[in-house]
């Protein structure tokens, strides 16, 4: 991790400094990973299609979702102030963090003020984005992930690879090994003779975390939505670990990106239909928790995070990425994600949405971030399933135009520009090419080989069209 300047995301996957293409090429050697990803993406995409089909007004819901988000983002300052006032009125405390460092500092101080050195966590992408667990650990505070997949990732000292099912790259046997070898170091050990049945593994996680839920004094969460009008926070989940963390501890700290605000209570009637059906492919996810300010005697802190989001907001093409509700539907239909897997994107935001969000949040300074806009065939499936109609291909093309291009490509483009600018010059070059046509190799040498590795060079005809036209 590096403090890459105020307002920029700072977390990079360690050991992932290479380009997307290199990461993907390596991932594709892993046959097990390929099978897992294929099964996962195809299963979820099938479920999604079935439950979306059930709603005759899906297109209208999607259009409303897009418009609510665009309206909110256009007036984000007003809605954040309204949210702050409503949360404060309901007994909550609101903090503002311009970047990852500031958010990490605020949360660390809030935990310290409680005197606790352990916290339980609800699955939250934004706290991964800012590297909160690592920051807390450096200050003597242990953060325990409680979502089953996040637990697998944490115990395995690993990285999430999917937005919805972060441990999808692991199979049951690997998970049993991780539980058997690592649970004891984090609390209650795995039961003797643990089998690799998913039900047995889920039971092991239940036992491992139960005491911790009941005894923890501090919890950290994100949120799926925040309602400006009422100050209400919304968390959707499946397992009940979210309810445990949101309900039981004395202090609750929610770290939420500023783009998660919605203007009115009524807006939930749109998003609570769009999100579950797009995400898990269910009519509704098992549990949704909504609370407003300090609830049932709890202390509540809300940390509003920018960390590069206002930079995205300033971009007239890229700002639509801030509509994202993190459903992961775009991952499950993407032919590139299906083959490359989540780790190749080197970010907590993988898949098509990651390919446009990560370079905008982090900038395109590294080789990896510079290569992400190319992690797509531009097939458009992501746009089709996006519940808030983010035109991911449009943003990808825009970012490609801004990416740093290799010297050889820049030189070739300059040469082509010079050649095409003058008719006489072009004709002379064409005649030269015709004369040399037997000498031009099928594969270009040096850096230009990158072009011919994946493409055939066009055949050069015996006579150029211009010459033929003039002759006949």
């Amino acid at each position, binding site marked *: 991790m590096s403090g890459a300047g105020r*307002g920029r995301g700072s977390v990079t996957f360690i050991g992932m400094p290479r380009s997307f293409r290199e990461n993907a090429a390596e991932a594709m050697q892993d046959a097990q990973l390929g099978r897992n990803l294929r099964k*996962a993406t195809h*299963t*979820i995409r099938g479920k999604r299609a079935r439950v979306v089909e059930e709603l005759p*007004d899906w297109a*209208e819901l999607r259009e*409303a979702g897009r*418009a*609510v988000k*665009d*309206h909110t983002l*256009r*007036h*984000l300052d007003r809605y*954040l102030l309204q949210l702050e006032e409503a949360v404060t009125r309901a007994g909550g405390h609101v903090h*503002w963090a*311009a970047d990852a460092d500031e958010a990490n500092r605020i949360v660390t101080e809030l935990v310290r003020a409680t005197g606790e050195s352990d916290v339980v966590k609800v699955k939250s992408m934004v706290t991964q984005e800012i590297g909160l667990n690592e920051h807390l650990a450096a200050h003597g505070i242990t953060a325990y992930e409680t979502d*089953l*997949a996040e637990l*697998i990732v944490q115990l395995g000292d690993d990285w999430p690879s999917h937005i919805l*099912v*972060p*441990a*999808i790259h692991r199979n*049951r046997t690997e998970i049993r090994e991780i539980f058997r070898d690592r649970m004891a170091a984090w609390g209650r050990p795995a039961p003797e003779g643990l089998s690799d049945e*998913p*039900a047995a593994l*889920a039971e092991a*996680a239940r036992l491992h*975390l139960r005491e911790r*839920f*009941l005894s923890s004094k501090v919890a950290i969460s994100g949120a799926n939505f925040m309602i400006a009008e*009422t100050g209400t926070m919304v968390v959707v989940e*499946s*397992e*009940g*670990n979210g*309810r445990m963390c949101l*309900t*039981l501890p004395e202090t609750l700290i929610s770290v939420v990106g500023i783009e998660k605000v919605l203007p009115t209570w009524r807006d939930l*009637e*749109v998003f609570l239909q769009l999100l*579950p059906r797009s995400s898990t492919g269910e*009519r*509704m996810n*098992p*549990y949704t*928790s*909504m*609370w*407003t300010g300090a609830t*049932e005697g709890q202390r509540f802190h809300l940390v*509003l995070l*920018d960390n590069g989001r*206002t*930079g995205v*907001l*300033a971009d*007239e093409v890229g*700002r639509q990425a801030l509509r994202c509700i993190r459903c992961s539907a775009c991952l499950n239909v993407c032919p590139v994600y299906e083959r490359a897997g989540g780790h190749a994107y080197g970010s907590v935001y993988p898949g098509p949405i990651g390919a446009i969000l990560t370079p905008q949040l982090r900038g395109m300074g590294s080789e990896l971030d510079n290569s992400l806009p190319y992690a797509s065939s531009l097939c458009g499936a992501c746009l089709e399933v996006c519940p808030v109609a983010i035109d991911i291909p449009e943003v990808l093309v825009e970012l490609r135009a801004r990416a740093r291009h290799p010297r050889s490509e820049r030189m070739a483009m300059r040469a082509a520009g010079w050649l095409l600018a003058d008719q006489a010059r072009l004709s002379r070059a064409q005649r030269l090419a015709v004369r040399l046509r037997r000498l031009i190799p099928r594969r270009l040498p040096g850096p230009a080989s990158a072009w011919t590795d994946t493409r055939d060079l066009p055949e050069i005809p015996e006579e150029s069209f211009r010459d033929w036209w003039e002759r006949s």
Partner: protein
Amino acid sequence: MSAREEILGRIRRAVAEAPEAPEAGIPRAYRTAVPCDDLAGLLAERIADYRAIVHVVPVALVPARLAELAAGKRIAVPDGLPAEWAGPAREAADAVLTDPARDELGAADAVLTGCAVAIAVTGTIVLDAGPGQGRRELTLVPDHHLCVVRADQIVAGVPEAIARLTPDAPLTWISGPSATSDIELDRVEGVHGPRTLEVVIAI
């Protein structure tokens, strides 16, 4: 400059040139009411889809059914549970823990509550911490949640439910038992929340 002023300033600069997106321009052409002749039937079907247990019971028979379900169990109950349907269940239960403290919750085999609203299309019950529903942890820690839905509490779709609810009190939306698909996408019912959800729809 505080982070608050800095972020607000950045937002204002970022959207200064952006196209207008007025509130009045938000199209709400989606359905805000879904026609449905058999709300209870649809609710029962959709809850059962989540592999929860559903009983559709005439109002008059609800007390006896609840007594059957509570028999032999240690039952936690919130304050304000209607005596007319919960009375026999209290008598049939092995023990009744009324509004128990957290450290007593582990001793309950099941918790018996009402709800605020139920959504037929999605198979969802919503608790709003009102009478007969209790604090949030009451329906979270015990492994078995027994919930009674009255016919007049059922609405068809999500928009009707949102219109009936206010977020002044904490809300818990429940659609089936706790579940995970985190391991090879195999669905397992029951991780941290109640592993059994049993809904009695009183018609």
